[in-house]
């Protein structure tokens, strides 16, 4: 191999630097596209919705006239729904994750379950709506109620919570489990006193993110019969209900120039609630993050 002379080296170096710059610019452009879309989206929503945003908008029920209509039923409905979803899916999800990570023998059955949970996390939400319709509405006869909607949503986010909790459990160093087991702790004592405290921040963060996915979902709730316009708050879990995204969806599809503006105002409220939930998740993650 001959050593290239100085001129060649110089040319080559120039070419390499140019190539580097080109790719730098390309990647930056790709990032910018996403940002531009986001900024446009927020700008459009804000410019359309800010005008309709008022306390009355949050306090009022749906109404036949846009100037009187409000999001109250949707906000409260969404909050109730979240309570049901949180109770069902977080408890079952974390318990499932603990079983799979700590108790289940690694074998064909476990990896089969594992694979299916991961697949479930990717199933389109409409499919969960159909499942909810068949099972909760018809088989269990819960009707088109808040309970049906909550349970359907729980199924939707359950796999996400299981996977996130498993990640959190796996990140607990094995040495800590060994240290506990070597002192004669039973498996449950080790889980309760060592593993859970270390894994909880990750689990909570994952669960909140899963809940914020549920709060924005529309499709499955349309199928299990959330009402589009409702003039009272649900009295019980078996009452009819509506949620924010459904109200927004129904306003957008109404004729007239003012309804879409109202929908934009609804989107702002939804975004604010989502941001708050994500902020809580980030806060918990940062506050309780441990170093090992």
């Amino acid at each position, binding site marked *: 191999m001959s050593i290239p002379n100085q001129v060649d080296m110089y040319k080559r170096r120039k070419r390499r630097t140019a190539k580097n710059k080109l790719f730098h610019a390309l990647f930056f452009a790709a990032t910018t596209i996403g940002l531009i879309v986001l900024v446009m989206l927020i700008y459009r929503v804000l410019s359309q919705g800010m005008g309709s945003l008022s306390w009355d908008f949050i306090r009022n029920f749906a109404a036949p006239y846009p100037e009187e209509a409000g999001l109250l039923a949707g906000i409260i409905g969404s909050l109730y729904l979240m309570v049901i979803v949180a109770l069902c899916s977080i408890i079952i999800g974390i318990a499932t994750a603990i079983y799979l990570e700590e108790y289940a*023998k690694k074998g064909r059955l476990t990896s089969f379950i594992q694979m299916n949970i991961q697949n479930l996390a990717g199933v389109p939400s409409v499919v969960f709506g159909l499942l909810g319709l068949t099972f909760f509405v018809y088989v269990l006869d819960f009707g088109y109620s808040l309970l049906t909607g909550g349970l359907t949503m729980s199924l939707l986010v359950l796999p996400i919570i299981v996977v996130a909790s498993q990640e959190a459990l796996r990140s607990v160093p094995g*040495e800590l489990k060994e*240290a*506990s*087991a*070597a*002192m004669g702790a039973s498996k449950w004592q080790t889980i309760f006193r*060592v593993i859970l405290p270390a894994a909880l921040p990750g689990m909570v963060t994952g669960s909140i993110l899963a809940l914020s996915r549920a709060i924005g979902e529309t499709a499955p709730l349309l199928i299990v019969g959330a009402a589009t316009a409702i003039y009272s708050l649900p009295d019980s879990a078996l009452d009819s209900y509506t949620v924010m995204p459904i109200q927004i969806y129904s306003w957008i599809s109404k004729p007239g120039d003012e309804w879409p503006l109202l929908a934009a105002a609804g989107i702002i409220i939804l975004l604010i609630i989502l941001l708050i939930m994500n902020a809580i998740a980030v806060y918990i993650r940062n506050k309780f993050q441990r170093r090992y």
Partner: protein
Amino acid sequence: MTTLAKPVVNKQVEKKPMEKNSVFEVTNLNLWYGADQALYDITMNIAENEITAIIGPSGCGKSTFIKTLNRMVEMVPIVKTSGSIKYNEENIFDSGYSVEDLRTKVGMVFQKPNPFPKSIYDNVAYGPRIHGIKKKKDLDIIVEKSLKDAALWEEVKDRLGENAYGLSGGQQQRLCIARCLAIEPDVILMDEPTSALDPISTLKVEELVQNLREKYSIVIVTHNMQQAARISDKTAFFLNGELVEFSDTNHLFSNPDDKRTEDYITGRFG
């Protein structure tokens, strides 16, 4: 998953005159990780209130062996064993034998210091708490005594509430020893306890181990032959999963019976 060999009935094992009782009687122990055999036919007695060192090159099975004594090796799910280990006359592989009880009596200190992400106090109190001691007064006494026995009390007595991760590596390892002492075991297994420590911390831990011999039986795995020679009463030399030689430390290091032992301790391999 444990398969038990039938007890040998007629073959009386010749007993050497022993001045001390055995805490562990290991008989024909074989161990497999899946299809790979890691221990071959180990038979040895570990005496009470002595320090038994286990030496050998990497991968010779010494860590596996020590982890078998408190069945920690079963944390790896594919492990299979045959043969028997009697701890105080009872076979620890018997189906009814409680691993939790065994590990309460046979404590362990690991290679890498592994304190919990809790306060110093809570680390030491962990063991007593899981065994049902709840009263603050009782716990206080145990924590102080354990930390004193582990020669750490003077360094940490003013900051028991601080996180254990703030301690140095050597202090963390002595904390782990204190944590182990707090459950009042009979035997302490140490798996290369000084390999992650600096020379001064190593010295402190070695002194500590010497002092603990009065009350405890200690089995210590070490990479460091000088360490074995310095602190132990008996030494076992493992090679490729076999127990090559097991005798008094002085004898093994000055006048080994086996050629392979001699090669190893004179640094010809390993």
